[in-house]
């Protein structure tokens, strides 16, 4: 096989996906060509449409093909609760796994000062405007627990508090089904210092 055949081109293109190396890319290509050409055509068309038409929600910045996403439009959700997350995948995870019924704001990243990712990249101005509408009673920070993500939470908390809005942070601690002796000391320290009343 030469480098510039269509097959080789397709293999290389598929490798832009996470977790797809040359071997699995080749397997996908042979599968589509040999067994599922219709599936391949549907994939190609959907992929093109998605890449062209999906943008970011004007309010919460998650991915959507409309101006506003379904969660921001929904009237049944509590508009006074705002959960700040890093990625659209986080929105999906919280929506699927919890009974949270408020709105979201997606940062699309976290502060990483030494890599040049600053507040300007995270839609902070947009978030501030949202807070200034006066509808929001509580901001829930649901960023991860690495140092940079905690710095992100800290940074946001500062200007939320300035506006007299309650700031909370999702709890950090022992995972369900976890045993204390296998939990690292940092997590354990957080779990202990952030302990809550037993109910």
């Amino acid at each position: 096989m030469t480098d510039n055949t269509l097959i080789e081109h397709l293999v290389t293109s598929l490798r832009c996906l996470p977790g797809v190396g040359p071997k699995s890319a080749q397997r996908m290509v042979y599968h589509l060509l040999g067994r599922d050409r219709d599936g391949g055509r549907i994939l190609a068309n959907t992929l093109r449409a998605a890449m062209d038409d999906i943008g970011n929600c004007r309010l919460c910045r998650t991915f959507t093909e409309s101006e506003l996403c379904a969660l921001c439009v929904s009237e049944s959700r509590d508009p006074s609760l705002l959960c700040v997350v890093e990625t659209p995948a986080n929105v999906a995870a919280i929506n699927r796994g919890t009974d949270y019924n408020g709105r979201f704001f997606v940062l699309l990243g976290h502060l990483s000062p030494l890599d040049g990712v600053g507040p300007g990249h995270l839609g902070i101005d947009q978030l501030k405007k949202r807070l200034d509408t006066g509808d929001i009673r509580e901001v829930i920070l649901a960023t991860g627990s690495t140092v940079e993500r905690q710095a992100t939470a800290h940074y946001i908390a500062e200007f939320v508090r300035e506006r007299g809005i309650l700031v909370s942070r999702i709890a950090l601690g022992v995972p369900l089904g976890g045993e204390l002796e296998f939990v690292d000391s940092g997590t354990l320290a957080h779990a202990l210092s952030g302990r809550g009343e037993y109910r």
Partner: protein
Amino acid sequence: MNVNHHPTLEPAFVLNRRPYRETSLLVEAFTAKSGRVGLVAKGARRGKIPLAPVLEPFRPLLLSWRGSGELFTLTVAEPDDSVCSPRIWSVKSGFYVNELLLRLLRRHDPSPDIFEDYRQVLKRIPVPGQEEPALRIFEKRLLAAIGYGLSLDQDAETGRPVEHEKSYRYQPGRGFVEDHGAPCISGDFAITVRGGTLIALGRETLQGSEQLREAKHLMRTILRGYLGEAPLASRMLYR
């Protein structure tokens, strides 16, 4: 070529890390005996017990590595929690200090004194009222360690001791000379500072908002000369 087999665990801190390939991390570490080193932490983002949560900045670690050349392969990483427990604090200054080390220290250049100073400054940053003086002392010692030490107790022109009440002007590459109010030639570095501040900085006894403010501007100006044109990325966090 830099060959390094490092079977023993060495005290270290992570200065910065970024994702590398699918599951690995590229770690820039600052170690007690080997200075700044670049390490590849293979598979650190996956596996039964991923290493990524351990390889966090500002946390005292014990690391060992092997390999040769510019980048080593990390073999062991353990938290060295006997030294101090990690806590949540405003990490702006921590990032700033890390960026200074990344920009001013070369790789594989051992600087054990700076390692100890770094450990001290991390301890003092979260203590109320100690953050500013600790940063200034660290900046001063870091400059001295990389060969740009400041002569804070002597007038560079006359050789006379610096006096409390007088004003001094910083001259890059030379030191401090008494300021007689003459117009300054090099606009970028036009900074004057009181003798008292220079003496306090030298003796590491900075106190009072006025001294701290002067010392901060002075160190910022001096560091700008060594950091080059690119602005400090960690300043983005200061509003």
